[in-house]
């Protein structure tokens, strides 16, 4: 009972809940995002505590990192669009306090019910442990999470990449017109740092991808780290998307989905069904898929950050609105 780790867990849990409340109640939106990022990092820490390093990595890189960047970019845009005024984003009709309280009470009740149900559920109950352990040798990889993601439940993962593709198509569709919020100015020190950091990040990302076959890491975490490269390039104006890059960008978006789906289809035959990789080639195929998916994820996340489809700055070069 006096295990210091329990005290750590309790403190961490309290901090997470407190930060969640703070994120919703802090008035300033910038502060809200900062609180959220800390909340995300602490959640990732908690997941490490729960022996889920892959999840922690993904949450830190994508759930917190990329999401935080997206939120900041949007906040920047909103402040620019409403002309530096203090941003009240929604022209709100104030919700009556009664309704608010009713909502809160309602959610409280639901949460309480869920907590009761959770406490009644078997802890460390039945799972896939044995099944996964038995099937790992036939999966072609050594790291169980990668085995699940890219072999046992590869179909889910394919559809997850499809979700990303759908997101980037939707974002390109939604945002249009010329850039109306210039990128934030960055100091020279920052730019210098970025130039230095870039190669290192690339190396880390690629390593994460490679190591995923045996140890925590893999396509998504690697992709997210590589996406950070893209973000830096975009922020530092080291790379400015050009209209004629659209084709390449489209290709990069669909690369992961396309290759993944093609491999899944082409392995079918001779008694095998879709997604059933021949054991001899399983590792190669999975690495191929992971590699392509990593590229797609990196480019897609960067594009989601950039937002608009790159369009020509001069009107006469533009073929569509």
């Amino acid at each position, binding site marked *: 009972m006096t295990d210091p780790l329990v005290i750590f867990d309790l403190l961490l849990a309290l901090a997470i809940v407190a930060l969640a409340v703070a994120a919703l109640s802090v008035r300033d939106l910038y502060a809200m995002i900062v609180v959220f990022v800390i909340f995300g990092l602490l959640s990732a820490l908690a997941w490490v505590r729960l022996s889920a390093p892959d999840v922690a990595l993904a949450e830190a890189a994508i759930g917190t990192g990329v999401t935080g960047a997206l939120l900041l970019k949007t906040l920047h845009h909103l402040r620019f669009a409403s002309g530096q005024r203090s941003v009240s984003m929604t022209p709100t009709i104030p919700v009556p306090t009664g309704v608010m309280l009713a909502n809160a009470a309602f959610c409280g009740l639901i949460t309480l019910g869920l907590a009761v149900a959770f406490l009644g559920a078997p802890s460390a109950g039945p799972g896939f442990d044995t099944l996964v352990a038995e099937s790992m040798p036939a999966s072609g990889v050594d790291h169980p999470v990668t085995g699940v993601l890219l072999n046992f439940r590869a179909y889910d993962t394919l559809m997850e990449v499809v*979700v990303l593709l759908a997101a980037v198509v939707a974002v390109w569709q*939604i945002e249009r017109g010329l850039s109306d919020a210039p990128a934030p100015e960055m100091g020279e020190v920052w730019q210098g740092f970025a130039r230095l950091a870039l190669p290192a990040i690339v190396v880390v990302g690629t390593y994460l991808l490679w190591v995923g076959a045996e140890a925590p890491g893999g396509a998504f975490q690697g992709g997210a780290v590589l996406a950070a490269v893209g973000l830096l390039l975009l922020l530092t104006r080291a790379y400015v998307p050009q209209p004629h890059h659209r084709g390449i960008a489209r290709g990069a978006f669909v690369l992961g989905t396309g290759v993944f789906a093609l491999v899944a289809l082409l392995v079918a035959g001779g008694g095998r069904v*879709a997604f059933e990789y021949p054991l001899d080639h399983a590792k190669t195929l999975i690495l191929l898929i992971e590699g392509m998916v990593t590229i797609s994820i990196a480019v897609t996340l960067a594009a989601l950050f950039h937002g608009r489809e790159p369009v020509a700055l001069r009107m006469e070069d533009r073929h569509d609105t």
Partner: protein
Amino acid sequence: MTPDLDPMILAIFLPLFGAIAAFMLPRAAAVIGLVTLAMTTGAVFWLAQRVLATGAVIVPLGGWGAPLGIDLRADGLSVAMLLLTSAVGFLVSVAALDSLKGADQARQRQYFWPLWLLLLTGMNGVYLSTDIFNLYVMIEVIALAAVGLTVLSGTKAALRAGLEYMYASILGALLFLMGVGFVYMQAGQLDFAGLIAAEPSAAMSAALALMIVGLLLKTALFPLHFWLPAAHANATAPASALLSGLVVKAALYIFLRLTTYMPLPDEILITLIGALGAGAVLWGGVQALRAERLKLLVAWSTVVQIGLIFIAFARAGQVGLAESWKAAALLILAHGVAKAAMFLAAGRIKDEIGHDRIRDLDRAPVRPTLAQFTFALAAISLIGLPPSLGFIGKWSLMEGAMSAGYWHWVVITMIGTLMSVAYFSRVLSAFLRFDRVRAPVGEHQGWALADAAPLTLALTAIGLGLMAAPILRFIEIGYPFGAAL
């Protein structure tokens, strides 16, 4: 090595590859879209034939088999939904060719096809899935593509509606995901067989409640319908047809499946679901009577119809659940076809007249007769007049309720029918009134190509009523789930 093709795999992968191709080659997007739709429809017919011949079929993806892997499974109900989706989708696509042909719609043309094909991938995936986490991913594919289609026109109203829709969609999906978490904790499995085998417990009740609330939010059952009318009314016509006719059906389908495998534990809950349906019928009816725009009226009618489908589900209480889902399924199919027709017709009317204000429809000297006729036919099915499929569905609903002595559902259905007559006749009488027009009325005669697709849909909605007996036999194939395994 030539890969072995399976129609189930094709039904998911064809639209996926189509979406990729349409995104890569924007100029050829329409052609790619139509070809993909045609091929997908073909694959679904192939699958239907196979299911008809051999009963439910399964593909264990990756060769692992559930519960470790994910199985695709097609039975009568899923194939019926697939047929609805691809056939209606094909006709809506044909109609989209015309309604997106404007010079100022290049952007809409470019993005409509990849988004719609991704949407189709997601919907087909839902109908073939047997794994609740996979269902979560699929409803997210649907949600993102559907929001993209909602805001295709780029107007402020559409964007606002799209954002509300997005919030509702994400929240619904997250509630569902939370439910998945509880199922995992209790059962340690995520496939349907695991759901059936799971012991009833507090965790399973919480899971069921979370998933159902999430799905009700996605399918817009009163009072969780708040996002639907604006989203469906402000989208461009083909997108509205897809959203109203097909997209809400995916969550409805999951609801039907879940409640088959995890029956609602209490009669009161079933009554509650029915009561919400009744609320939808009444509130939606009142709003449709007040709506000032044609498309808004049609969108409110979707709220009403969804309510009716839930009443059909609850029509005979717990004892009747083994049969009631069929009545609900009939209404789902009927609404899918008829509502797609009606939204396309409404879009055509708006295009021809130039506005869709109901009170001014009878002032227009232009009368797109065929589109108006289509609208009327679709209304016949939605009101539930014979011999349409809507009528058969309503008949099944009332028959079951009456046999079980649940007269309140009969009364609600009749009130709903009268209200639907009232709000549709607002529109229909405007079509047929001429004395407020100053100029000579030009009624279109003969055939406009753009009317062909909606008219076909509307006639199908009427004609399918004659096929109700075979449809009912077909959707029972492979029911209940355990039978085919």
